C-alpha cells in the first residue's frame, strides 16, 4: 500500500513539469507580452514611459530572451516559491493567490461534503422506493440539475433573492465582517454565506452521484444475500444500511477522481457570477489583462489541485477495495 502511494507521489513532480511547460506556452501565446499591455494601460491613463525604461524592464523580466529561456527563468523562480510580480496589482503574485486560495479550497471542499450529504440519502431513498412519487420527483430534479449550467442557477437564485426578497446573495461575508480579523462570529457569518454557492456548485454533481448510488444500490438489493437476510427477519433499514449500501459505495469513491477536480475548476464560474473571493475571478482578470505570470501561477495551482484530487481518489479506492491494492 505504501509502495503504491509512493509510486503515485513520485509521478507528481513529472506531471507538474509537463503542465508547467504547457501552461507557459499557452500564457505567452497571445501577441505581445504583458509589458506591451501594461505600457498601453499607462499610456491610456496619461503617463508615458521612456523607451529605455521599457527596454530595461524587458531585460529585467527576461522578456527579450527566447521562450525556452523565459520558461527556465520562470520555473527557477517558482522552485524558490517566487511566483513573480503582478503588473496590474503591483504586488507579488504569491500574496494575491495566498489571500484567496483558502476560500477557494473551502468552497470546493464544502461543496463536496454537501454533495455527498445530499446525494447518498437521496440515492438510498430512490433505490429503496423505486417508482414511488418521491423517486419520480427526485428523478426530475436530477435531470434538471444536470441540465442547468452552474452560472445559470446562480443567476436565477441571485435574481429571485434580489427581486422578490430584496437581499443580495453575492460575496462571502456580511459588510461588517468583510475586513474584520478572524473570529467565531466571522466564521459563522462565512458559513451562513457559503452554503448557497456551495450548493449551486455541487448541484450537477449531486444529481449524478445520486443517480449512480440509486443504480448501484438497486443492483445490490436484488441479490440473494439480501433476500436471505430479509427472510431471517432482519430489520429492513438495518439490512439496507449494513450490507448493500456499503457495497454500493465503491463506485462512488472512484467518482472523487473526476469530481474534486471538477469542483475546483467549476468554482471559477460560480465565483465569478456570485462575486466571491476566489482565485477563479482573479484568473479571469489576469487572462483578460495579459497579466501572464499571475495567470500562469493560478493555472499551475489548478493543475496541482487536480492532480492531488485524482491521487486522493486512487488512494482512497485502494484503501477500500483490496483487489486494487494487490494489483497496484
Amino acid at each position: 500500500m505504501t509502495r503504491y502511494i509512493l509510486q503515485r507521489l513520485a509521478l507528481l513532480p513529472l506531471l507538474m513539469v509537463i503542465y508547467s511547460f504547457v501552461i507557459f506556452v499557452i500564457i505567452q501565446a497571445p501577441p505581445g507580452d504583458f509589458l506591451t499591455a501594461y505600457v498601453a494601460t499607462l499610456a491610456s491613463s496619461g503617463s508615458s514611459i521612456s523607451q529605455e525604461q521599457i527596454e530595461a524592464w524587458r531585460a529585467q523580466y527576461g522578456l527579450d530572451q527566447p521562450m525556452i529561456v523565459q520558461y527556465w527563468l520562470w520555473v527557477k523562480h517558482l522552485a524558490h516559491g517566487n511566483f513573480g510580480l503582478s503588473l496590474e496589482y503591483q504586488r507579488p503574485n504569491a500574496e494575491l493567490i495566498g489571500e484567496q486560495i483558502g476560500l477557494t479550497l473551502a468552497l470546493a471542499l464544502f461543496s463536496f461534503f454537501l454533495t455527498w450529504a445530499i446525494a447518498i440519502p437521496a440515492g438510498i431513498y430512490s433505490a429503496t422506493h423505486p417508482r414511488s412519487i418521491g423517486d419520480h420527483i427526485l428523478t426530475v430534479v436530477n435531470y434538471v440539475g444536470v441540465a442547468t449550467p452552474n452560472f445559470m442557477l446562480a443567476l436565477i437564485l441571485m435574481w429571485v433573492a434580489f427581486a422578490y426578497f430584496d437581499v443580495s446573495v453575492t460575496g462571502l461575508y456580511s459588510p461588517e465582517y468583510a475586513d474584520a480579523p478572524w473570529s467565531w462570529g466571522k466564521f459563522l457569518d462565512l458559513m451562513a454565506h457559503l452554503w448557497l454557492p456551495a450548493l449551486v456548485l455541487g448541484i450537477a454533481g449531486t444529481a449524478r452521484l445520486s443517480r449512480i448510488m440509486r443504480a448501484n444500490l438497486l443492483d445490490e438489493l436484488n441479490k440473494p444475500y439480501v433476500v436471505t437476510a430479509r427472510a431471517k427477519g432482519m430489520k429492513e433499514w438495518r439490512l439496507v444500511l449494513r450490507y448493500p449500501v456499503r457495497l454500493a459505495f465503491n463506485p462512488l469513491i472512484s467518482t472523487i477522481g473526476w469530481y474534486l477536480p471538477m469542483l475546483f475548476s467549476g468554482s471559477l464560474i460560480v465565483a465569478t457570477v456570485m462575486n466571491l473571493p476566489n482565485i477563479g475571478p482573479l484568473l479571469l482578470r489576469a487572462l483578460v489583462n495579459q497579466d501572464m505570470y499571475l495567470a500562469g501561477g493560478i493555472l499551475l495551482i489548478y493543475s496541482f489541485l487536480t492532480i492531488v484530487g485524482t491521487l486522493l481518489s486512487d488512494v482512497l479506492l485502494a484503501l477500500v477495495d483490496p483487489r486494487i491494492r494487490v494489483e497496484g
Partner: protein
Amino acid sequence: MTAADIAVGKEAEDRIAVASNWKLVWWRFRRHHLAMASAVLLIFMYTIVLVPDFFSTQDPERTDARQAFIPVQTVHLFDDGALSPWVPAIAGKRNPTTLRMEWTTDPKKKVPITFFGTGYKWKVFGLFETNRHLIVPVDPNQRIFLLGSDRLGRDQWSRIMHGTQTSMTVGLVAVALSVILGVVLGGISGYVGGKTDSFIQRLIELLQSVPTIPIWLALSAALPRDWTPTQIFFAITVILSLVGWTTLGREVRGRFLALREEDFVLAARLAGCSRMRIILRHMVPTFLSHIIATSSLAIPVMIINETSLSFLGLGIRPPAISWGVLLQEAQNIQTLALAPWLLIPGLVVIVAVLAFNLVGDGLRDAADPYSH
C-alpha cells in the same frame, strides 16, 4: 390463448428474428416516450439551425436605443373567437425619478400579426433571396418583440433563433471532432498495442487530469483578437473537443482489446483482409450504436461548456450570437430585476440539454442488447 393469438405472437417472433440490429434498436428506442418527444424537439431545433432567419421576426442586429427593455409580447391566436393572431401593443412611460422609459403591454390595443408573411430580406443557405418569415406583423413598419428586447433594443426572439444556430452547431461539431479523434486514436491504441498503446494511454491520462475550465479559458484568451467570428467558432470547437475525445478513446480501446481475440476477427485476417478493412468493416460496426449513444450524451456537455465560456466573455464573441453571448446581457442583477426576460436564453439551454440527455439515455438503453 386462441390460435390467432399464437399466430400473432409467432409472427412477432419471426419479425424479431430477421430484424437487423438497427431495426431492433429503433423498436426499443420507440418505446421510450420521453426520449421520442425529445428527439422530435431536437429535430425541430435543428430545423431552426438550418434557417434561423425564417423563424426570426426581425434582423437580430437591428438596434434602437429608444426601444430598450421592451417586455415579452405574448402571441394570441384568437380575437373574439375568430382566428386572427395578434400581440398586445406596448406603451412607454418615462419614470419621473429615474428618467428611464418603462414599458408595459396593453392588451386592449392589438397589433395584428400574420404567419408566413413578408419581412426583412434573407438568403436561404446563402443561395437565393427571400423575405418570407414564420411570424411577422401585418404592418411592416411595426416591430414586435415576442420575447422582449435587450438594452440596445434588439429583438431577443430573433437573437435566440440565431444563437440556436451557433450553439447547437458548436455542440455537434465539437462532438464530431471528438468522435473522430477518439475512434482513430482509441482504435490504434487498442489494435496496435505495445508502445503506441502505452503512449496514447499516458496522453489520455494527462489530458484527463487537466483542470478543464481554467485551461479552456487560457486557450481562448490566447486566440488572436483579430480573428473573424468563424475562425473563433472553429477554434472554440477544437478547444472543447481537445479533452472531449479522451473518454471515448478509452472506451473504444477497451472494445478493441476485447474484440481483437474474437474468432471473426481472426477469420477476417486469415481471409486476407487489410488492417483498415478489419477495423472499419468488421470491428467498428459491432460497437457503433454504443458510440452513437455515448456521443449523443457528450453533445449537451459541450453545449454547457460553450455557453459557460461565452458567458464569461472568452468563448464565442459578439457580433457572433450564441446562447452564452445572449446570457452576457443578464450578468447584471439590477438589469435582470428590470428585465427578467433576459434569462430566457438560459431556459432554452436547459431545455436543449435536457432533450439531448433524454435522447442519449434512450439510445443507450436501446443500444444495449441485454437491457429489457
